[in-house]
């Protein structure tokens, strides 16, 4: 029993806090006995080779949970350091530990598994056990790890902007609460996340202060959809589509596969797009998209209609009438008729054939309306779905687990009445992003006490009396619901680095309960499960899995209230535009969202999946609109709307509706860290509560100035190379050229159709390892969401370079998402969009290797094109000779120098990386210095780890030869994150592996085969599923035809 005795050092007040991590657990008897056992419970499972790392991590997650359970229940629990030299047995220095957790987010939390090294989280993955994730994640989850270490996070309690302490705040809070009586003057403003523990605390608070006001605000949330749901299906409901059941999907102004969908939708959609044989292809779903500008959803569409957002209602009305007449549905006809006639006629044949297709798959079709559309338009969408038999089949109605709250508008009215004297804002940044007509800044200033909990000092904290540093979700216990309703525990993996306090802690203080988030979450958990608090087993099981599933959907309980819907629709006023005016659509940005991620460098530097714009937002407009105003990309445009005038740069986006303009909100933050400060243009001042998502009556004029936009892909046209680079076919065409008919159909396209057979004059060293690593990328399911780019950045310690460097063309991403627009001659206005992830192709006969003068890039026996950073002298010859231009050169010491001082003379400028950012780095990947070439390694560190694990596991069995890594036992970061499972990485030699099967897919082709580079990356050609009766069916696949228009002025090329 005296094996390990921990000497608890005094809590350091001034020292660095970075190592205050998981090991800082209270030394309770239970925990001590846990650690003092020779082998922790279950450690025997870790022996032998059959246990995957994932099992191991679940085990370890449980062990920490158990230890955490016994934290003493004081207000600020005293926690002590356990030095790593005397660490617990399961913590092996240099070995990763994995913990389940979840990212609370609107529209459903993201189930996660967090990788930690020596107590510091370095990487986030999806929870493979969770049906919503299946191991995949999205851009925001991936990037959230950087937020944790953001050196500009708020680190102390501020009172009127001056440093204060938690104790002072607590005293002040108690005084406020003492005066609160029944809470007349008390108001809360929270975000739109569904968090059961917060809901529970809310109830406690409301029982204590029944008069307190509780409002929620989510600038890019689905409040309009919820409003429609409450009318159509009753209060407290929400809808969840099930795309796996849908054969025909129509989205109207909804970026279903992008910012308005979640992992679940994307995964279910992809499952219906994933085909391996030409006979499978008939089971593919078909996607009709109506939208004002190209989105990822539009890129995946089989038929796309460019239509201004303000005309979605008119379109939907026409569609509803068509569906009603086809089905003879009088109710739907009546509902649609309630919709006031619009001054716009949707293209008749398009609507007719689309409606016919939807009707022909009755019960298996689905119409989804954008969350930006007014509730009335959404109601009409529900009506169509009800008529199509989608309810309960492809569209489920569920209870919404957030109790009804006031809107921010109602709250501001309440404040205006002067009845609020204490406003508690949990997260969010309403001063920046509340609708401008609410004059929130003035409203907030008029409140005597404003307490703002935020992870950064932002515009709202600046004018709040109290600013409380918020804890990152990886720093404190919490919980949330996933989009499928399952309950997830937000498990912390590190103690607050910057002294952050969680929402639950603050609310518990107000509610007068013990502010111990773990205890609060556990109580919620047991309450939800109707269990006694002592049944710890379930809790531990839940932590291991990361969630417990929701009760089965009760869709049938809710029925569509056509009458209420019709009544509501008849009040709707159709938005009208005058001649020469545009509508202006406020986009949810796929990177900074409503501005909350503005200080995240990974996200700022991530190219927008469609525009490829980084470090900015811009006014998107169609090539035709641009031409009529003689505007080119990068011209500053003066935008006037309702007596307000703005200047912002224009970006010509092919496929944009001509009478529509789009601009992303969330940019132009003034009070944030140096990364996000002043990036882009703030358009919130023209967002009003009347028209929160789009408004009509915008006018533009060329301002006569230029603005430098950092666009990572200068050229968007395929230049007639579609048949070489992005091969496509249609279901019908593939059926004619099936595996038996024309096995080389996809292999003999473009230049490969008439290239002689390759042979090499030289003999190459054999690639004779037991493994042969390779990758396949299924273009049929890849949406181009770019999550792989951020995942790669997090995994491989890829630096950001800043806007100036991106403008020059020096972004460092190892994997990029190429996005092309292409069209048949004459069809330039309706181009097709194709996305193609591009990473090192690991050519067996690599052009880069032969030209390196110092042998810094060579080939490994298992088929990797490897870089020896230490050997590289940086001639850049390899990059020049790379046909795919995937090599990335460190033009500056991006890791050691701040973005702002790259050009300052090295010898007199400051060097070094912020301490906290160092903690994020993956210890298994070298941080590269300047002058060194780098590129995708196929995550060689993961390969090595897997090989070592296989070797360890087999040490007693096969001493003579290297053991084979079990099939698909690990994967690269990009493949792991991919929500659509488009990227597959694995061992080509292993017949059990997924890649072995994918590689044999008829659709497989390699880029630029004629160069005889023998790539190890196969692309699987894209199959489109057009409805041949549609007027635009002939356009499908135009991006892959031999010749098509490449009009340099058509907006496809963004010149500097």
């Amino acid at each position, binding site marked *: 029993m005296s094996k390990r005795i921990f000497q608890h050092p005094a809590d350091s007040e001034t020292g660095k806090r970075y190592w205050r991590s998981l090991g800082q657990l209270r030394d309770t008897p239970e925990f001590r006995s846990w650690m003092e056992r020779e082998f922790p419970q279950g450690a025997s499972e870790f022996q032998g080779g059959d246990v995957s790392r994932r099992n191991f991590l679940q085990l370890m997650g449980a062990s920490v949970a158990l230890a955490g359970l016994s934290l003493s229940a004081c207000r600020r629990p005293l926690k002590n350091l356990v030095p790593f030299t005397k660490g617990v047995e399961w913590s092996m220095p240099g070995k990763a530990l994995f913990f389940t957790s979840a990212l609370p987010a609107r529209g459903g939390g993201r189930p996660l598994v967090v990788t930690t090294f020596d107590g510091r989280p370095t990487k986030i993955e999806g929870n493979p056990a969770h049906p919503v994730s299946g191991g995949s994640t999205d851009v925001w989850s991936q990037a959230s790890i950087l937020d944790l270490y953001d050196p500009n996070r708020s680190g102390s309690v501020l009172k009127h902007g001056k440093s204060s302490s938690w104790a002072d705040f607590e005293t002040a809070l108690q005084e406020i609460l003492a005066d609160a009586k029944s809470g007349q003057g008390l108001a809360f403003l929270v975000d739109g996340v569904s968090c059961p523990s917060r809901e529970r605390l809310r109830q406690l608070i409301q029982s204590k202060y029944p008069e307190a006001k509780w409002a929620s605000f989510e600038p890019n949330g689905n409040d309009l959809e919820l409003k429609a749901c409450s009318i159509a299906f009753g209060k407290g409901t929400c809808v969840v589509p099930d795309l796996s059941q849908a054969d025909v999907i129509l989205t109207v102004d909804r970026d279903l596969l992008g910012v308005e969908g979640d992992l679940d939708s994307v995964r279910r959609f992809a499952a219906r797009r994933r085909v391996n044989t030409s006979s499978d292809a008939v089971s593919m779903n078909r996607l009709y998209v109506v939208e004002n500008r190209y989105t990822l959803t539009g890129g995946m569409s089989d038929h796309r209609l460019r239509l201004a957002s303000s005309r979605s209602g008119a379109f939907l009305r026409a569609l509803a009438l068509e569906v009603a007449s086809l089905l003879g549905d009088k109710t739907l006809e009546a509902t649609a008729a309630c919709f006031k006639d619009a001054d716009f006629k949707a293209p008749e044949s398009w609507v007719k054939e689309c409606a016919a297709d939807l009707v022909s798959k009755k019960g298996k079709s689905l119409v989804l309306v954008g969350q930006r559309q007014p509730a009335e338009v959404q109601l009409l969408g529900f009506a169509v779905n009800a008529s199509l038999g989608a309810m309960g089949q492809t569209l489920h109605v569920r209870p919404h687990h957030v109790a009804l709250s006031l809107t921010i508008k109602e709250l501001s009215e309440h404040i205006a009445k002067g009845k609020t004297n204490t406003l508690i804002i949990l997260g969010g940044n309403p001063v920046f992003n509340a609708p401008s007509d609410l004059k929130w800044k003035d409203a907030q200033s008029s409140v005597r006490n404003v307490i703002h909990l935020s992870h950064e000092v932002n515009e709202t904290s600046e004018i709040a009396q109290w600013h409380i540093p918020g804890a990152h979700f990886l720093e404190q216990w919490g919980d949330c619901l996933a989009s499928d309703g399952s309950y997830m525990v937000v498990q912390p993996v590190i103690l607050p680095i910057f002294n952050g306090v969680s929402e639950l802690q603050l609310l518990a203080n107000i509610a007068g309960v013990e502010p111990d988030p773990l205890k609060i979450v556990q109580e919620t958990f047991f309450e939800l499960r109707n269990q006694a608090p002592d049944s710890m087993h379930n809790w531990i099981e839940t932590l291991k899995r990361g969630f417990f599933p929701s009760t089965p959907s009760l869709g049938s309980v809710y029925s569509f209230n056509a009458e209420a819907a019709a009544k509501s629709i008849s009040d709707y006023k159709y938005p009208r535009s005058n001649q020469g005016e545009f509508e202006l659509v406020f986009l949810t940005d796929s990177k900074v969202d409503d501005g909350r991620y503005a200080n995240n460098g990974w996200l700022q530097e991530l190219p927008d999946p469609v525009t490829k714009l980084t470090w900015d937002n811009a006014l998107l407009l169609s090539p035709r609109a641009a031409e009529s105003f003689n505007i080119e990309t990068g011209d500053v445009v003066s935008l006037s709307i309702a007596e307000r005038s703005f200047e912002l740069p224009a970006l010509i986006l092919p496929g944009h509706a001509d009478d529509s303009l789009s601009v992303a909100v969330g940019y132009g933050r003034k009070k944030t860290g140096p990364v996000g400060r002043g990036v882009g243009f703030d358009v919130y001042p023209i967002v009003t509560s009347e028209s929160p998502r789009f408004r009509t009556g915008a006018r533009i004029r060329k301002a006569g100035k230029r603005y430098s936009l950092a666009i990572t892909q200068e050229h968007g046209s395929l230049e007639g190379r579609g048949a070489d680079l992005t091969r496509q076919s249609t279901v019908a065409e593939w059926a004619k050229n099936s595996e038996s008919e024309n096995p080389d159909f996809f292999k003999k396209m473009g230049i490969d159709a008439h290239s002689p057979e390759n042979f090499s004059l030289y003999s190459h060293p054999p690639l004779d390892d037991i493994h042969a690593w390779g990758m396949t990328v299924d273009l049929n399911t890849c949406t181009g969401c770019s999550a792989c780019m951020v995942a790669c950045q997090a995994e491989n310690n890829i630096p950001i370079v800043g806007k100036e460097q991106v403008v020059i063309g020096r*972004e460092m991403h190892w994997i990029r998402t190429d996005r092309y627009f292409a069209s048949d001659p004459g069809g330039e206005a309706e181009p097709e969009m194709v996305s193609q992830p591009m990473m090192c192709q690991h050519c067996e006969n690599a052009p880069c290797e032969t030209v390196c003068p110092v042998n810094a890039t060579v080939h490994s026996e298992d088929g990797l094109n490897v870089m020896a950073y230490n050997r590289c002298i940086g001639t850049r010859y390899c990059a020049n000779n790379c046909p795919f231009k995937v090599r990335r050169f460190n033009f500056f010491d991006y890791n050691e120098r701040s973005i702002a001082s790259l050009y300052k*003379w090295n010898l007199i400028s400051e060097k070094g990386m912020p301490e906290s950012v160092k903690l994020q780095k993956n210890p298994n990947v070298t941080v590269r210095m300047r002058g060194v070439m780098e590129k995708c390694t196929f995550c060689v560190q993961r390969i090595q780890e897997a090989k070592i694990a296989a070797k360890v596991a087999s040490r007693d069995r096969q001493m003579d030869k290297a053991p084979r890594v079990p099939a698909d036992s690990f994967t690269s970061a990009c493949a792991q994150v991919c929500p659509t499972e488009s990227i597959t990485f694995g061992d080509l030699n292993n017949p059990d592996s997924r890649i072995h099967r994918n590689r044999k897919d008829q659709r497989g082709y390699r880029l630029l085969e004629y160069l005889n580079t023998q790539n190890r990356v196969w692309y699987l050609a894209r199959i489109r599923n057009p409805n041949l009766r549609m007027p635009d069916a002939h356009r499908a696949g135009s991006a892959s035809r031999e010749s098509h228009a490449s009009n340099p002025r058509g907006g496809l090329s963004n010149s500097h």
Partner: protein
Amino acid sequence: MVKEITHSDMESPSIKFHTPPELIRPPLVQNGRSLSWITESVASIVEGPTPRWWIVSFAITAPIAFMGLLCIIYQISNGVGVWGENHPNGWAWDITNFVFWIGIGHAGTLISAVLFLTRQKWRTSINRAAEAMTLFAVVCAGIFPAIHIGRFWNAYFLAPVPNSNGIWPNFRSPLLWDVFAVSTYFTVSVLFWYVGLIPDLATLRDRARSKFAGLAYGLFALGWRGSNRHWRHYEMAYLLLAGLSTPLVLSVHSIVSFDFATSVLPGWHTTIFPPYFVAGAIFGGFAMVLTIMLPAARLYPQLNDLITRQHVDKMAKIILLTGSIVGYAYLMELFVAWYGANKFEGFTFFRARAAVDGSGWYQWSYWIMMFCNVVSPQIFWFQKMRSNYIVVFVVSQFVNIGMWFERFTIIVTSLAQDFLPSSWGHYSPSLTEKLTFVGTFGIFLSLFLLFMRLLPMVAISEVKLVTPDADAHTGSSSH
């Protein structure tokens, strides 16, 4: 002088036979200058007081050279990022400048070695200066590959030095061949130049009026006494070095062209490159010789008897010839691109380069190249133009510019728009990059000015050998 011979013994007196007119070669040294005059006039350049124009010129070029050095220091300390290179364009001005300078460095060795072996006696009055120019051009050329690498301090990895890691350079890489080729070329050129200098250094030593000059020239003259044995060894060494240099003239630029030709990039991957590059190098090199020699001959009028119109005429003809070869190569590239029917190559040649539709971003550079290198030298078909020093000088400048743009066109048009349109990217040079290039002109001209002041610009001993006086048999009457 036309001799008319009347064949009086012919049968018919009415028929007159004319022998074809015999063209007498103009003497290589005009005005029948004596040997001592040659020594006197060349040595006086070094021995005389420093001319005012020299001081003014040096006061301009030296600071420019210094500025170039500062740019290089800044670039090495901060990283290649201070230049304009980016992701598709891994090379741009750096390698353009390298190939430009190394090309210029071809004329000297060609004149001294190839023309020596082919007994072209007119070379003697220009070979010294041309060789010096070669060396200085190679010095400037060597700067760029050295500093363009990301980690300058690890450049020694290029040397095949046995090391504990057992890592050798990659002998398959043309860049490594480049290192060997250029360093060999530089070494041999220095030796060749120096060996040729020895008799003249001895002359200067013997004429030296100050003790220091005598010592300095004496040190480098290696105790030359002009004995028969000395001359025998000297001539053997010179011949051997000429033989050694001759293949280098061809190899260096062939190997430089391999940097491009062995790659897979459309526009680089071309088998025509080695001869085309060599022709281009000679072309550019002669233009630079003229650029330097024409002003020098004007500033030192005594040199006009040594560097005569026929020298200029011959060099102009070489420019015409090599310029036409280069032009042929340009057209052949286009033909092969068309004949090959490879769409990627087709794009590079017919859209990125030889077009005016704007689909290639650097089409203008192609047309600058075409005009300067192919069109402008055609004026040398006219003897009148060849003998007009101003025309010759202007065309030489066109050629200098054109040859720089040739390399720019090859490097940047191919890199900026290659296989995948997604990775296409513009390139524009940074100020540092531009000033570094300007700085190398400062280095080049400063070195040349120093050379003019300190060493005999014309190979005294060699020129003497081609004067009639040197020929014991024919004496001074003929040659």
